């Protein structure tokens, strides 16, 4: 019998013990029960070591994760925010460098992603959202990931970057190859990365001849420390934007609508009270948090009760931390007006997600339109929804139906 995402179908206790002893955020077996497994780790071993992927520390407790995020001088994003480290041999900018160099690049992006500038995109995001909904609303059913959640952020991003919207299928293919291709063959992300870089370099040449109202043009004219950016620096920034802006929002849409489609009383609260939407999104960011981020310890230091060595790899499990009962009373309950809610879906410290205002805007607009236009949406009976962990947690598909 296909199983839906129901808490009563809990994980095999042996599986839980396996992950407590030898955590691996990329193990496909973690996917279906990651919340339950993380709850065990938060309680029993909020700081632990695993020998997987060459060995790394795993921080699951909120206090520890929060401290690590705020203390880049001890726990750094340089050289890679992935464990195991990403195949690319240059740091993505500005994420994989530390202050003060980090600050120089961050200031270039801040105006583009500022709350004021992002607010100007609302009408366009709403129009795109509604065009996508128009495509399936009459059918009374959709596969929400492939027909909506995977598309909207890519369309928005593509336009901001000044990439041609007609090429979207190519960008999604590259994104999938870079983010997920390594499971099939480590060459796949390498080849895709090279293709993305060639493509962006060609676009750069075009924008150098003629500027447009897009991020690439902004980057060409940006001045940092009195100098313009090199093509390589522009690539390092573009690559980060490409990776950071796509999977994340798609995943957030997936896991949040999965919850709502299975908890119709929450769906109905939003249909009847759209003013609740911003708070609901924040609580669902916490309850269905997304990121396990990679770090590197910068020096021999005792932290969180353990001896860490310079060069040790480490992950901050913000998904686990966002359900730590020491920080969030009743962590496994969705409480739309939970207060305070200092969740970590966008991180904290100097590397706080630059795209957070854009992400929140996309989420709010989608929530408004879906609850307005298809208020009776629910999970298709018998649907099989598979979760995955990895760096960005999420689901594979979300079959929804509604009354027409």
């Amino acid at each position, binding site marked *: 019998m296909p199983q839906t995402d129901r808490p009563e179908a809990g994980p095999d206790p042996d599986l839980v013990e396996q992950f407590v002893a030898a955590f691996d955020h990329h193990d496909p077996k973690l996917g279906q029960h990651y919340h339950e497994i993380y709850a065990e780790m938060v309680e029993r071993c909020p700081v632990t070591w695993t020998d997987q992927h060459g060995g790394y520390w795993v921080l699951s407790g909120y206090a520890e994760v929060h401290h690590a995020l*705020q203390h880049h001088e001890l726990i750094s994003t340089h050289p890679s925010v992935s464990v195991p480290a990403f195949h690319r041999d240059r740091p993505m900018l500005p994420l994989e460098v530390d202050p003060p160099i980090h600050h120089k690049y961050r*200031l270039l992006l*801040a*105006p583009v*992603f*500022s*709350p*004021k500038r992002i607010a100007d995109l609302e009408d366009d995001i709403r129009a795109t959202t509604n065009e996508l909904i128009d495509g399936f609303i009459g059918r009374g059913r959709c596969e929400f990931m492939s027909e909506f959640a995977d598309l909207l952020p890519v369309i928005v991003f593509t336009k901001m970057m000044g990439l041609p919207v007609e090429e979207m299928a190519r960008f999604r293919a590259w994104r999938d190859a870079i983010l997920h291709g390594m499971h099939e063959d480590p060459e796949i992300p390498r080849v895709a990365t090279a293709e993305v870089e060639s493509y962006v370099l060609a676009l750069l040449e075009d924008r150098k001849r003629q500027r447009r109202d897009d991020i690439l043009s902004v980057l060409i004219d940006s001045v940092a420390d009195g100098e313009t950016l090199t093509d390589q620096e522009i690539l390092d920034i573009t690559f980060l934007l490409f990776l950071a802006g796509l999977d994340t929002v798609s995943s957030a849409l997936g896991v949040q609508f999965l919850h709502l489609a299975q908890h119709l009383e929450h769906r109905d609260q939003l249909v009847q009270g759209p003013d609740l939407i*911003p708070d609901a999104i924040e609580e669902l960011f916490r309850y269905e948090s997304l990121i396990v981020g990679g770090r590197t310890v910068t020096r021999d230091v005792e932290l969180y009760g353990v001896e860490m060595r310079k060069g040790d790899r480490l992950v901050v499990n913000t998904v686990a931390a966002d359900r730590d009962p020491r920080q969030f009373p009743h962590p496994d309950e969705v409480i739309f007006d939970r*207060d*305070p*809610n*200092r*969740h*970590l879906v*966008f991180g*904290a*410290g*100097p590397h*706080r997600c630059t795209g*957070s*205002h854009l992400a929140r805007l996309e989420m709010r607009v989608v929530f408004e339109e879906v609850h307005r236009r298809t208020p009776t949406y629910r999970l298709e009976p018998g649907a099989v929804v598979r979760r995955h962990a990895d760096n960005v947690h999420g689901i594979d598909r979300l079959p929804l139906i509604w009354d027409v």
Partner: protein
Amino acid sequence: MRISVQRESCQGHARCAALCPELFGLDDLGFALEKHRQTVPVELEAKARRAAAGCPELAITTEP
């Protein structure tokens, strides 16, 4: 009550401005600005506390 934003700790989450727009604004890059130099009006004290508690960096203090 008085509010104070520690600018060096502010990372531009903008939660304060979302939770209490009467007292917290944002500069052009999205970092927090206090809108009130004087004492917080009594009717806004609860919201001010909520905004301070909502800052992921704990960069806002309220006194008392």
